[in-house]
């Protein structure tokens, strides 16, 4: 593999500290000013009703801090598996010329097996999650 040598094809970008400082200062001043104006001009009035969470005008029931189910657990596992396996393809790609046709056929076989696995998982509904998965199982 040859490194890209054509440096003049890209625009010259010289990181300068001065423009960064000016930019940061403008952002900070603007945000600060807006916050200050809002805090001054807005009328602040804290009442128990106002501090209550808004839930369509009804007093909420129970806590919102619940253990949240991870229905996409399976999807995450499949992602991991296919991700790790793709690392083999990178390893092959780096040395593909040295490995020749024999290596090419081997990796093709590997990819086909992977694709078959993906099709199987897909068809089985393994990439669905949450309510749609349950409906698929039910039907």
């Amino acid at each position, binding site marked *: 593999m040859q490194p890209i040598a054509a440096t003049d094809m890209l625009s010259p970008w010289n990181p300068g500290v001065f423009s960064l400082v000016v930019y940061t200062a403008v952002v900070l001043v603007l945000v600060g000013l807006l916050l200050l104006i809002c805090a001054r001009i807005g*009328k602040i009035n804290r009442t128990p009703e106002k501090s209550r969470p*808004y839930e*369509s*005008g*009804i*007093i909420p029931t129970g806590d919102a801090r619940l253990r949240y189910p991870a229905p996409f657990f399976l999807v995450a596992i499949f992602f991991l598996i296919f991700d790790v396996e793709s690392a083999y393809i990178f390893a092959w790609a780096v040395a593909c010329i040295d490995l020749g046709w024999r290596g090419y056929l081997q990796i093709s076989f590997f990819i086909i097996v992977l694709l078959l696995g993906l099709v199987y998982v897909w068809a089985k509904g393994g990439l669905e999650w949450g309510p749609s998965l349950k409906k698929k199982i039910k039907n």
Partner: protein
Amino acid sequence: MTPKASSLPGRFEGAADTLINWSRRNSLWPMFFGLSCCFVEEATTFTSRYDIARFGAEVLRPSPRQADLLIVSGTVFKKIAPVVLRLYEQMAEPKWVISMGSCANSGGMYDVYSVVQGVDQFLPVDVYIPGCPPRPEAVLSGLLTLQEKIKSEKPARAIFNLPGGTQGTQTPIRVDGQTKSRDPRGPGMAGTAIRGASATPVDFFDSRSDGMWTPPPARVELNEDEQATVALLQERFGDAVQPVAPTSDYATVQVTPKRVTDVLRFLKTEAPSRFQRLDDLTAVDESARRNRQHYPDFTLVYHLLSYDTADRLRVKVPLTGDAPRADSVTAIWPSADWYEREVFDLLGIRFNGHPNLRRIIMPDHWQGHPLQKVYPGRATDLPPYTLDDAQNKQPLDGGIYIRRDEGEEKLILNIGPHHVSTHGLIRYIAALDGEEITDLKMEIGYHHRGVEKIAERQTWHQFIPYTDRVDYLAGAANNLPYVLAVEKLAGIEVPARAQVIRVLLSELFRLSNHLVWFATLAHDVGAMTPNFYTFREREIILDIVELITGGRLHPSWLRIGGVAADLPDGWQTAIEKFVAIFPRRLDEYEALVRRNPIFKMRLQGIGRLRAQDAVDWGVTGPNLRACGIAWDLRKKRPYSGYEKFDFEVPTATEGDCYARYRVRVEEMRQSIRIIEQAVQNMPPGRYVTEDYRYAVPKRPDMLRDIESLIHHFVNVTRGPKIPRGQAHAACEIPRGEQGYYVISDGLGYSYRTRVRGPGFANVQVMPLLAVGESIADLIAIIGSVDYILPDIDR
């Protein structure tokens, strides 16, 4: 405050005031908050023709945290008032309040037990917009008035921590008897009797109708199927079943309370014409009857319908006692659940074996049963609603609807009563496991306007405007079942021209309703654009309606015996122009959403309803037809001359959200066909019946001959005396089957009027559609079912 006490130079303070007020008044953020009909006009103001953005109030905000302007649009119900107050308190400050429409201003035409007589009794109000409902232009005018008011505020002093100054709403709330009078007589009329005439509810003692003669009520001959059913019932159940004859509409039997469940189960499953649908279940308090000795204390009334023969059957059950009991039929029809709860809530009849007999319409703390004759009908006869009530009478906690076992973790989420996507005041209480809905409960009654009680005190003609507001998007289509029922009872012939005008208006309103539905469904699944297109054509329809009737949402145009006036000059060209452009426009909307993969994925396979469930739960209208049942009253039991029109009944088989979408869009195409035919074949002749005994006579006739003058005087003052009897009529209004069951006791008022709204049954099945779907799908399901609250809660 003297200038000396200020440490600010006066000129600087004035400049700061001007600058701040200018910024505030040109960037008002109204909340997306609507209570009833008025909100439709409010929402219209931000669509293309009116475009509220021109006045700096860009987008309606869905959360109170982002809003500083509350437009109280519509009727303020006692059940919703605590919610309104909470939303107001949760809004950003400074904040302003506009009271929109007669109901919010003063209770308007709803002087009834469930309605607060003016939102200013618990919220401070800056600007009142009159009207019922106010037009969109009036909303804009109200906004400009508020902007003028903001100009005069002095916010700078508070901002610089100085005493004095003003910003936001400063008006005090009104207290009954001190700063506000609920006396219906008006100022200067204190010497008169509080209700005017001697004939007052509930018994209308001394009514002059008692001395009048009328012909007997209309009679019908039962057809063979009906006769066979009645004969079979008598043979099978002997003395327990008594036929009621003659009747004005269809077969009626009286059944003893003990055998009623057996009879109903037989009718549903074994009778040759199977009565599969419990169309309606209601009751009548008979305690104020003229001939009291002929009646029991209460009568339960079951209305059944057969899909096989398109026959109807009425089963009446006499009950005795102050708080009688009857057997529940929830085991036969699951839909009886809500109907029986409603009968218990409003009439105090209890049901043995009902799984959950609690109040459904009135709030849980309510005392008494409002549809009992002894209960006062008017809010002005009850104690005033105060700020204290709004702070304390809260809706029940969600945990009461959904039980949680010890250690079980599920999220209970309230969606509504105030939510952009609930399309009105209904509260869904969902139990969530992650995103999935594991349980769904509903609380209705936030929009109960007591129309059934009002019908018992307004004359037969005066009640027509109330019917418009039962389904506020269907306008004149609502008048139809009511006038048909009264005409059926009194045997009034309607001229052919009036019948076609009625059909024409009903179909125009079907289109206008479906256009709103199209916009809201698309909006619910994330597409804002169709809103602006469909409301453009809806305005054209409303212009036509205005040309014909003079009104927009609520024309109150149908009359007993005909319509209010003849068609005006130029009606034909206006409709022909619309008919010429509309089909192409419809294709345009369809192109916007139908080829959109996201729109399809949000709807296909979501919220599936099986045909059998739809039948068992009494689902009607496009929602039923989307399950594959080609049932349309316009075809199966034609009324008002629909049999003369050539149109098809669109159906779909999947029963999911997408099927409901397709059926409604196709219905719009069929409506256009009907409108075209109505324009081409408009018969000449009278627009109101010649028989003036019950109708309001034409004005020229009234001015010319004495008989018409007398009829006019009687019919518009104490109301026509409708013969003693009962009749039921149902129509296919845009959302399904709306039925009116009217009972006359021979007075100018109805003795009992029952409104069967399609939404009541259609919404009761919601858990079947939504449980197991994800929370985002609930919004799509709500949009596709297309219900409206005033016809659920009435």
